[in-house]
């Protein structure tokens, strides 16, 4: 697995060197959170919907094998091919095989975080298959040779001037043009040609219905449909946890999804794919890639309820001020931080600590994942597994000894106050990270205990 050179804290420090840019990133995402608030407050039944969605997802996890088999049976009866992939590599191989069987070497793709997780684009490129991402935000990061920084707003970290430069370099727009209308129109024309000429289209899956074997893909742009309806073969990649039991449950989930994600009541398109059109093929790839492992973790299996709305990222004060790339995972932010350690605990040991445990994420989550509690629990697991840095372990052991003994505690406290009073330079310097942007507290003459002993009768 990958080992990262820098961790979240170090990358965030770099991100914070440009304060104006951090303010811009923070305010943009806060605005998305504010739009979400406005939308959800229009539904008095909002908290009821969250509760129901959470219960439905719990029901799914408790009978996941049954729903998977039911979904497969119905999908097959609908004339859809169903594939199973235990991991990312197997998923990628299946896609590759489906394409080469038809002598296809160019594919158009709509948004799928699962394929980001599997590294599909790179895999296919290595094997001579060109993939064009058709979602505007994803196309932009693809041209920039970057990964998406947000699961719903892939290029939220990019300014329009930067996008203008990218389009000038790759799509021939005039230099210096950054008007979003103009740039979007350019992308429309460029991608229309792609839709009209690609014989294979790959989409993600927002929800798969066990009851009927159909699956739903939600977009604002219409790119999933443009690709799928014009291609000969439509491949849909899906994490096994994306199932919901009955069609009518979509009423609950679709009402929650987009309001949570962007503050819209619904995406422009919620497309229900059931059977391929005449003369065409439809394939679904059911992907595990660590999900069954997470399913077995009692404290963390709830993270599989996630419907990938991104609300937790928008509300997270740390994510807004560090950016998605500082998480070094396909899925960033709070939900990413409880999913990633399951995939690779060593590589992602930093993520559960990239949080103040403020709890905002858990309370915007439409399916009521207890994200902040899982962050706390992952910290215990990571430290117990020996992945905490040695220096930290020593500090904590010292803290334990000091705080378990009233005498040691009082001695340390007094020593600290005296140091601040008489040798402040020992504390107020660049070796003290607190001191970089903050003054140390003023040392009082007495601790409360000392005051109590002189002002109240000892009891």
């Amino acid at each position, binding site marked *: 697995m990958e080992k990262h050179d820098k961790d979240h804290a170090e990358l965030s420090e770099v991100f914070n060197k440009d304060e104006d840019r951090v303010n811009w990133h923070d305010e943009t995402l806060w605005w998305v959170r504010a739009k979400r608030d406005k939308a959800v407050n229009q539904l008095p039944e909002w908290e009821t919907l969250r509760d129901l969605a959470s219960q439905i997802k719990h029901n799914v996890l408790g009978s996941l094998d049954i729903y998977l088999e039911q979904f497969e049976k119905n999908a097959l009866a609908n004339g859809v091919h169903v594939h199973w992939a235990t991991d990312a590599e197997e998923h990628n191989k299946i896609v590759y095989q489906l394409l080469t069987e038809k002598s296809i070497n160019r594919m158009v793709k709509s948004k799928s975080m699962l394929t980001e997780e599997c590294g599909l684009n790179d895999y296919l490129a290595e094997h001579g298959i060109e993939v064009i991402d058709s979602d505007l935000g994803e196309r932009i990061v693809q041209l920039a040779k970057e990964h998406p920084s947000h699961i719903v707003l892939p290029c939220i970290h990019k300014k329009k001037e930067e996008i203008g430069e990218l389009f000038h370099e790759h799509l021939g727009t005039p230099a210096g043009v950054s008007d979003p209308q103009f740039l979007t129109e350019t992308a429309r024309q460029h991608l229309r040609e792609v839709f009209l000429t690609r014989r294979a289209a790959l989409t993600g899956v927002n929800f798969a219905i066990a009851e009927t074997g159909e699956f739903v893909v939600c977009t604002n742009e219409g790119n999933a449909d443009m690709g799928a309806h014009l291609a000969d073969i439509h491949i849909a990649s899906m994490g096994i946890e994306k199932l919901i039991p009955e069609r009518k449950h979509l009423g609950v989930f679709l009402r929650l999804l987009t309001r949570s994600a962007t503050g819209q009541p619904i995406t422009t398109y919620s497309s229900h794919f059931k059977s391929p059109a005449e003369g065409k093929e439809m394939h679904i790839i059911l992907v595990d890639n660590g999900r069954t492992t997470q399913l077995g973790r009692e404290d963390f299996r709830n993270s599989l309820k996630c419907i990938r709305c991104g609300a937790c990222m928008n509300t997270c*004060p740390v994510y807004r001020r560090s950016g998605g790339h500082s998480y070094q995972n396909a899925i960033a932010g709070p939900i990413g931080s409880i999913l990633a350690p399951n995939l690779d605990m060593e590589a992602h040991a930093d993520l559960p600590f990239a949080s103040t445990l*403020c709890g*905002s994420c858990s*309370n915007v989550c439409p399916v009521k994942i207890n994200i902040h509690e899982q962050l706390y629990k992952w910290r215990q697991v990571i430290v*117990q597994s020996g992945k905490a840095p040695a220096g930290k372990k020593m500090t904590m052991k010292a803290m334990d000894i000091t705080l378990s003994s009233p005498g040691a505690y009082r001695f340390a406290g007094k020593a600290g106050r005296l140091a601040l009073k008489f040798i402040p330079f020992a504390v107020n310097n660049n070796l003290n990270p607190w001191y970089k942007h903050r003054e140390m507290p003023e040392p009082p003459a007495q601790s*409360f205990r000392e005051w109590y002993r002189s002002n109240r009768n000892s009891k």
Partner: protein
Amino acid sequence: MTVGLFIPCYVDQFYPGAAIATLQLLEKLGVNVVYPQNQTCCGQPMANSGFEHLTSGCNRLFLENFADFDYIVAPSGSCVLHVREHLHDEKIAGQAAGVSKKVYELTSFLTDILNVESLPSRFPFKVGVHQSCHGQRGLHLSQMSELVAPAFSKPGKLLNMVKDIEIIQLDRVDECCGFGGTFCVAEEAVSAKMGKDRVADHLRHGAQFITGVDMSCLMHMEGILRRQKSETKVIHIAEILNAE
């Protein structure tokens, strides 16, 4: 009833004024308050850093000091939440569970147990209220902006009893200040930026004082205010409620 006074370690050492105000306020309200002198810390800094398995010493000390009181009151949302959720002792599990239920953050003790309806306090200043996360979202001291639910605020209710106080509006009513325990040094850049932004919100709206239920948040914001050489000060809510 007898109340055991639980004072967070850093309040004891660095902000005794908040503890003194808490004690005096409770006594004014007719409560018999005892301060067990061998208390140290609730263990939260270790637990939040992933070292919950090292907190049994703290847990044992807490039980020894506080087991026999009717209620345990602390001027801190964060410490109280930690004790409520994580105080356990393998050997005396039942006792631990019983004790943690009796622990109250100060403002909720005043509103929920003492049913305080008026205070003889006066604080003629513009005050910004920082809603510390653990108290708000963990202990439900006030409604959080994430939920579609009726508004309420226990600290707010008490502050409104204080004469001549002016509570200012904020742009972001309950965004985290960025202290987060060891986060404040482990992720220093983000922590400082969050604190800076919180402070700026209060300053933009004319706060002369920033208050809240947790001295840890206030200590972090004070560090930033003093670095900026601002006139605005932080003050624990106990000191406002106790002010005359």
